[in-house]
C-alpha cells in the first residue's frame, strides 16, 4: 500500500537519522574520555600501549608488549593462539583461562580473548605472566598501569636550598624530560616516558614558605610531581637533564605579556613564555608551558636553534648563532602571524632546550610545518635541509624508531623545501637544497625543514641587518603560504 510505504519510509529515515546522531554523540563522548594506557619501561626502551576494557576487566595485547623486548611472533590455529617469544613457546585458548607456557600450565584470572587475531590477556595477570617469558624481574604498578621490566627505575631526591629566592633542587638518577605546566599555586611535571618511581613518601614537605611541599602521583601510565608554591614557579634544567631546579618566577617575567607579535585582535596568542622585552634572558630556563592553553591549533612551529648555554657557531667575535637564529625566528613568527598562520615559537628568549624537547614539543603541537633556523658564516644565501633518514626500517611491530619518525612526512617536507626554494629564487637569494644528519628533523612527525642562513654578500654583520632578516622571513612565509594554499586546492591530499 502507498500509505504504509510512506510510513515505513519515514520511520526508516528517522531510524537512520537517530543511529547517525547516536554514533556521532558516542564518538564525541568517547573522544573526551581519557584513553586507558599501559606504560612499559625496559632496558630496550620505554613505550606505551592502549588498554582495552572488556566486561569490566582491563585487557592488553600480549604480543604488543613482547615485540619491543625481543623476537616475538604469533599465529592462530583455530581457537589456539600460539605465541613464540625468543625461545619460549606458549599456547592460549580463546575463552579459556588456562595457558601453556614453556611446557607448564599457567592460569589466568579471567579468560583469554582473541580479537582480530590479537591475543588479549587480563592486565592483572601481568605480574605472574611476564616472568614466564622474561628473565628479568618484573614490577607492576597495577593501579597506575606502569610495568617495570628489569632494574630500570629512575629515582629522585628533592631538597630546598635556602638562598634568596629559595629553590627546590631535584636530582634524578637518569636524565628526564617531563611535560611541565603551571597553574596558580602549582607547577606540575608529568613524566610519560621515564620509569620514575616514588620516593619513600608520596608527599614531601620542605622548610620553606615559598615552596612548602611536593607530591608524587602515578596515574594512567604516567608519573607526576606537583610542586606547591606560594608564588608562581618556573623550572630550569641542568646536569644533562638530571637536575631540575624550581624557583619563584621573577616578578618581571610573571607580569610579562605574551610574546611580542603584531597587534592584531584576531591573532592567537602563540606562546606563553615570558617576553624578552620584559625579563632579562635566563640561560638554562625551560619553558613552563608551550602549548597554548586556549586550545589554538598551530599551523607552524618555528624553532630558533641553540640558545642558553649552547651558543651554536661563533659567527664573529660579537655574534653567536643562537642570537641570530632568535632574531630571525621572532621576525618570521611576526610575518606568519601577519598572514593569519598561527605560529608557535619554541623559544622566544635565551632558553636552553634539548633536541628531544624541541621534537617532543613540536609533535605535541601537531603543526602542519616545522621550520628550524640555523645561521652560518660560510657561503652566501640560504641552505635548506630535509632529514637524512636511514634507508630501510628497523621498527618493531607497530613501533617506529624516534630517529625515523620523520619517514612518513618526508614527501611533504620535500614539497615544503621546494616551495621555499622557489620563493628564495624569486627574491634573488642564492639557495641550495640538501639532506642533512641534523636533529631534531628526524624525530618530527610533520613537514620539517631546517634553514641555514648565511650572510647575503659575505659580510657576516649583514646577518643582523633588519632588511635581510625581513627578506628571508618574507620568502619563508610565502613558501609556507604556498604549501598551505596547495593543501586547500580541490583534490589535494592532506
Amino acid at each position, binding site marked *: 500500500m502507498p500509505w504504509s510505504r510512506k510510513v515505513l519510509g519515514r520511520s526508516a529515515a528517522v531510524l537512520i537519522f537517530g543511529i547517525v546522531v547516536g554514533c556521532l554523540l558516542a564518538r564525541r563522548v568517547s573522544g573526551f574520555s581519557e584513553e586507558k594506557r599501559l606504560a612499559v619501561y625496559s632496558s630496550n626502551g620505554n613505550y606505551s600501549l592502549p588498554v582495552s576494557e572488556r566486561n569490566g576487566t582491563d585487557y592488553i595485547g600480549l604480543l604488543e608488549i613482547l615485540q619491543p623486548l625481543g623476537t616475538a611472533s604469533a599465529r592462530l590455529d583455530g581457537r589456539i593462539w600460539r605465541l613464540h617469544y625468543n625461545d619460549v613457546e606458549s599456547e592460549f585458548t580463546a575463552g579459556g583461562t588456562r595457558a601453556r607456557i614453556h611446557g607448564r600450565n599457567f592460569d589466568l584470572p579471567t579468560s583469554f580473548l582473541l580479537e582480530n587475531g590479537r591475543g588479549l590477556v587480563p592486565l592483572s595477570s601481568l605480574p605472574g605472566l611476564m616472568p614466564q617469558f622474561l628473565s628479568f624481574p618484573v614490577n607492576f604498578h597495577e593501579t597506575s598501569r606502569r610495568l617495570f621490566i628489569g632494574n630500570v627505575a629512575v629515582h629522585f631526591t628533592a631538597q630546598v636550598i635556602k638562598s634568596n629566592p629559595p629553590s627546590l633542587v631535584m636530582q634524578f638518577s637518569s636524565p628526564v624530560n617531563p611535560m611541565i605546566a603551571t597553574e596558580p599555586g602549582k607547577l606540575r611535571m608529568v613524566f610519560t616516558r621515564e620509569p620514575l618511581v616514588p620516593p619513600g613518601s608520596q608527599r614531601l614537605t620542605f622548610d620553606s614558605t615559598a615552596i612548602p611541599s611536593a607530591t608524587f602521583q602515578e596515574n594512567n601510565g604516567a608519573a607526576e610531581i606537583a610542586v606547591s608554591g606560594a608564588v608562581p614557579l618556573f623550572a630550569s634544567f641542568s646536569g644533562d637533564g638530571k637536575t631540575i631546579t624550581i624557583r619563584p618566577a621573577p616578578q618581571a617575567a610573571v607580569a610579562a605579556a605574551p610574546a611580542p607579535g603584531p597587534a592584531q585582535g584576531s591573532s592567537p596568542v602563540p606562546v606563553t613564555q615570558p617576553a624578552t622585552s620584559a625579563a632579562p634572558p635566563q640561560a638554562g630556563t625551560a619553558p613552563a608551558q608551550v602549548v597554548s592553553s586556549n586550545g589554538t591549533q598551530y599551523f607552524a612551529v618555528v624553532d630558533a636553534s*641553540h640558545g642558553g648555554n*649552547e651558543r*651554536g*657557531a*661563533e659567527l664573529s667575535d660579537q655574534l653567536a*648563532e643562537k642570537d641570530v637564529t632568535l632574531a630571525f625566528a621572532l621576525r618570521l613568527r611576526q610575518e606568519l602571524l601577519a598572514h593569519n598562520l598561527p605560529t608557535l615559537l619554541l623559544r622566544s628568549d635565551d632558553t636552553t632546550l634539548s*633536541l628531544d624537547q624541541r621534537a617532543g614539543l613540536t609533535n605535541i603541537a601537531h603543526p602542519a610545518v616545522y621550520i628550524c633556523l*640555523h645561521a*652560518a*658564516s*660560510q*657561503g652566501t644565501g640560504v*641552505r635548506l*635541509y630535509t632529514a*637524512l*633518514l*636511514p*634507508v*630501510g626500517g628497523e621498527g618493531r611491530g607497530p613501533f617506529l624508531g624516534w*630517529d625515523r619518525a620523520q619517514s612518513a612526512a618526508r614527501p611533504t617536507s620535500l614539497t615544503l623545501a621546494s616551495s621555499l626554494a622557489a620563493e628564495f629564487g624569486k627574491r634573488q637569494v642564492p639557495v*641550495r*637544497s*640538501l*639532506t*642533512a*644528519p*641534523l*636533529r631534531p628533523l*628526524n624525530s618530527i612527525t610533520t613537514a620539517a625543514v*631546517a634553514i*641555514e642562513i648565511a650572510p647575503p654578500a659575505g659580510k657576516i654583520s649583514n646577518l643582523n641587518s633588519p632588511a635581510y632578516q625581513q627578506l628571508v622571513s618574507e620568502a619563508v612565509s610565502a613558501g609556507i603560504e604556498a604549501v598551505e594554499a596547495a593543501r586547500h586546492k580541490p583534490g589535494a591530499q592532506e
Partner: protein
Amino acid sequence: MIPRHLKIGVAVMLAVVLAMSFYAWRMRGRMQQAEPATAYIRPVTPPVQGPTEQLTLYVAYDDPGSLRAQGASIPLPAGRQERAQELLRALLGLYLEKSSSHPLGPGAEIRDVYLVDPGLAVIDTNDAFADGHRSGVLEEELTVASMVETLAANIPGINRVKILVGGKERETLAGHADLTGFYDVSAVNQLVGELQ
C-alpha cells in the same frame, strides 16, 4: 778529626753538583727559547708497512661546499681494519695541511677504526677532532660525509658507520651533525650525490 780523603771526596762531589746544576739551567733556558709546540700539532703515526695502492678519497671543499672524488696513492697494510685506519688518517692529513680545502682543528686525529661484523665500522676520533671543528651544518656534514664515503668506497662490505669522539658517543660533531646514530652508507651515498 775528619780524614783528608773524605774532605777531598765531599769537595769533588760538591763541584760535580754545581756543574750539573749550571748545565741543567742552561738546557732549560734553551728549551724555553725553542719554538713552542706548533711543530707537534700533526699526529705522529708509525710508518706504514705495505705496498702503495691507488685509492679514491672523497675530499670536502668548503668553497663551494662540495665533495669531490680524488685519486691518491697511499701505502696500506694488509689487515682490513688497519687499512681503514690508514685511509682515514690520510684523509685527515689532507685536511690538516696548511692549504687545506676543508681545514680541521689542530691535533685532529683518528684514534682507531673498528670493523664489527656485519658491515659496521666504528670510527673513534680524538677529542681535538670534535672540539676544534668549525660549527655549521654544511661544514660538519662535509666532514662526516667525506669520512663515511671514503671508508665505504675503499673497504668493501661496510654498510653502517658510527663515529665516536674520545671513545665515547657525542650528541653532535660541533653543534649540528648528529653523532648519536649510525650512518647508513646508502643514505650517505645519496647525500654525496647532492654534494658533488
